[in-house]
């Protein structure tokens, strides 16, 4: 039995690596995706447009405008508007993400020691980006006002003058990449494992070689193992390759234990291979297998806490997130990279993967047998 499985595994590796196309598909796209997604899937706001409607004729108003113009990294375009109509147009056509409206009495009230009011209009269609911009604009305006007030004799001590000193742990520069890239690593490893497993049976079905396997003395369980092992190994190595890339290319610190990550990845991939086998027992063609894989991947990523906190998910579907292996792997990967988690912190994330893996693998074996009849 072991010999038969060995033969099948060898054949499986040969089939993948002797074919230039599938060799490419397995190795290159995940690495490319890692690079592309890391740089694209950033929550920072850059190169945004900003509209300024300055009704103030004073010097201070112009100085405030100059402040905004001085940060081209964030606001590469500063558009001045001269009436409400233009403001509407600029926001409507998405030329600007936000409009800063400086009122007529801005300079006057600042000089008279009052706290001026500045209106900010935001494009709610891009809620995330506009929230980031809102905070940013707020900070700039507040700072500007404070500096002006320091030049004047204090009339009263305002609450605004209390300045909180913040310090971010684990991701000291709050680089969004630090938190997204380790999560992407988990997602892409998931994708590779799922695709290789789900396509391998479907490919044989399409070529007609699957019947040839079934008439051989190979038992269904042996075929299943023979299919699962190569996919597992490929995804595992690919995952390792990506860990290296993450550390070297992105300079993200690796603070935890590699052994821990390797072990967690092992259990995680078992679960994913089980799901891949599920898809491949159901799919009759490679196209179906591909569709099945993506039908699984999209919700798995959305529920994983990659982009939005799991706690924000509506309670009715939050349980789905509890059975999503990716959710645990995303958390583990982030933890191992950015902190050095102790065992008691990480175990609650690794433990749920075990029953999930056991369930997907055994049910896939059951399904596979029953679909053969």
């Amino acid at each position: 039995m072991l010999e038969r499985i060995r033969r099948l595994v060898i054949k499986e590796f040969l089939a993948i690596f002797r074919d230039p196309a599938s060799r490419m598909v397995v190795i290159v796209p995940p690495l490319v995706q890692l690079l592309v997604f890391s740089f694209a899937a950033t929550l920072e706001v850059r190169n945004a447009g900003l509209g300024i409607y300055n009704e103030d004729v004073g010097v201070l108003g112009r100085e405030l405008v100059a402040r905004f113009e001085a940060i081209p990294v964030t606001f590469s375009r500063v558009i001045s508007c001269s009436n409400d109509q233009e403001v509407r147009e600029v926001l409507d056509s998405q030329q600007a993400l936000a409009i800063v409206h400086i009122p007529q009495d801005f300079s006057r009230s600042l000089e008279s020691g009052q706290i001026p009011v500045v209106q900010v209009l935001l494009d709610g269609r891009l809620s995330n980006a506009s929230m980031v911009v809102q905070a940013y604009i707020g900070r700039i305006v507040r700072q500007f006002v404070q500096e002006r007030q320091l030049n004047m004799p204090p009339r009263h001590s305002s609450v605004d003058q209390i300045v909180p000193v913040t310090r971010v742990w684990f991701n000291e520069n709050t680089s969004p990449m630090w938190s997204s890239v380790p999560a992407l690593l988990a997602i892409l490893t998931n994708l590779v494992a799922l695709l290789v497993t789900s396509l391998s049976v479907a490919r044989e079905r399409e070529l007609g070689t699957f019947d040839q396997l079934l008439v051989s003395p190979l038992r269904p369980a042996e075929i299943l193992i023979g299919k699962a092992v190569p996919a597992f190994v490929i995804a595992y190595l690919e995952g390792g390759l990506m860990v290296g890339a993450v550390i070297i290319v992105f300079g993200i610190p690796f603070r935890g234990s590699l052994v821990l990550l390797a072990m967690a990845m092992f259990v995680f991939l078992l679960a994913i291979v089980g799901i891949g086998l599920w898809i491949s027992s159901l799919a009759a063609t490679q196209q179906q297998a591909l569709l099945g894989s993506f039908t699984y991947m999209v919700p798995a990523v959305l529920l994983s806490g990659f982009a939005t906190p799991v706690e924000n998910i509506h309670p009715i579907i939050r349980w789905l997130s509890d059975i999503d292996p990716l959710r645990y792997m995303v958390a583990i990967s982030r933890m191992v990279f950015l902190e050095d988690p102790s065992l008691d912190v990480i175990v609650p994330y690794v433990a749920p993967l075990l029953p999930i893996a056991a369930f997907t693998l055994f049910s896939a074996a059951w399904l596979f047998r029953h679909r053969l009849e």
Partner: protein
Amino acid sequence: MIRFDHVTKRFSPKQRPALRDVTVEILAGAITGLVGPDGAGKTTFLRLAAGLLMATEGRILVLGEDPRESLNFRDHLSYMPQKFGLYEDLTVLENLQLYARLRGIPQAESQENIKRLLSFTGLEPFTGRLAGHLSGGMKQKLGLACSMLVRPKLMLLDEPGVGVDPISRRELWKIVCEQRDQGVGIVWSTPYLDEAERCDYVLVLYEGQVLFFGQPSEFTARVKGRTFLADVPPHERRHVVRQWLEDPRVVDTRIQGQRVRVVVRENGEDAGKKLPGLRRVTTDPRFEDAFIDALGGIPKERVTFRRNGNHEAVVNGREEVVVADGLVKKFGHFTAVDHVSFRVRRGEVFGLLGPNGAGKSTTFRMLCGLLAPTEGRATVAGVDLRKARAEARRHVGYMAQKFSLYGNLTVKQNLQFFGGVYGLRGDNLRNAIDWALEELELKPFADQNTIQLPLGFKQRLALACAIIHRPDVVFLDEPTSGVDPLARREFWLRIDQLVEQGAAVIVTTHFMDEAEYCDHLALINRGRIIAMDTPDAVRAMVQSPEHPNPTLEEAFIELLIRFGEQEGVETNPNTLLNDEKRSEEKTK
């Protein structure tokens, strides 16, 4: 209708041209058969004539126009590709309406046309059925109907008879004949040599070159007086075939029922007499005889086939290695196989014939251990398939229809894989691989990717993979579809020797002349065996004074019709095929 003047078509400068220096003229009111194995250039010819490809060299005129200058002739042309693009999710009627609109036929005219075509093709009762639910034969008819909507002057049909059972094939042929009688010019391409014989003209292509163009009778006349049938004791047939083939004077020998068919070289009359045979009868030449003769006969060096491994199999000629006892397979309420029983002994070739999906593939799959029977008992090499399917599979070799091999593995890697999976180890495996490379002449290709092999070699490798573990029973599922006649003959020479060496062979086939190689035939329809006997006896069943010498194909059709009458059901092959279709779908 079509004139080709020294036409050559090359797809890539490195490869041999798909067509080389072809000069022919195709006439109106006649069926011209385009004959040749896969890769001979048939499809290229048709696509050139349809204006879909342009010739590399030479000049083409179709309906008086040069496709390079004008494609107006397409309004009077119908071209049916091998896989006609039917919309599977539309009904028969909707497909016809759609194609009428696509070809810009006015509403009133198209309605009348569709009505005429529906009654003409016998598809009227099925107008509301989805095209995807039609049987292979009906799909072809619908495709033909769609392509005839324009009232063509010229019809180009690419292998309309392939994958279609003999009854549907005969109906297609009838439709085409009626068109011919109205003066339409028809080109019908086919890999079946027996189909070629019925055409008015044939254009025989081989490796892109014209081997012959003219009336089929002229072609067969080339071997007139050189074909014989010899009576040989049944158990010696296979041996005699090979022995005679080694004689340089012989072009071709082949089993035909209880007799051996021999074709000798030129000045053959004497040669025929000198053969160390028994009683001989001169017989009418057939198209295939002439075809093989034109190719120079069966290559002699490929005749012998050493036994795999040095262990002497216990050859007990009487041992029954396959026993099927009252096999039943139900899919839900549908009975795909209904109490089928037969036995196959060592040293015997057993043929399973039947229309598409009559239950033969389901039977086949049960015996291979792919499906569990609902009822009944089946044993292979003494192992009960219900109890130990995996164990039984060890004794079985299986060669699937499409030569299921791993394309990007080398020949050797394929052999290693299949040998290893079947439990061969170490020296045993190495010897078996050497044997396969040697005996099937695959050595030069050992390290080549399988996908690059020519079709005939793929077939050899598929056979090698199926028998590398010395199975007691070899299952062949349409083993020769698409390969050229020489490769097919070679293949059967090998099978014959395998059988002599003690294996049992079960085969399904659409080539009726291939059924001649079988010792016994079972004709299956609607899940039941309606006739089971030797090929000669099956022929004898339908012999009549008007029809003293029926071919197996004729016998097959006749028996199907008789069976229908007995059942008190009108034998409408369409309905019966559709049952099968359903069963096939379920099997998947």
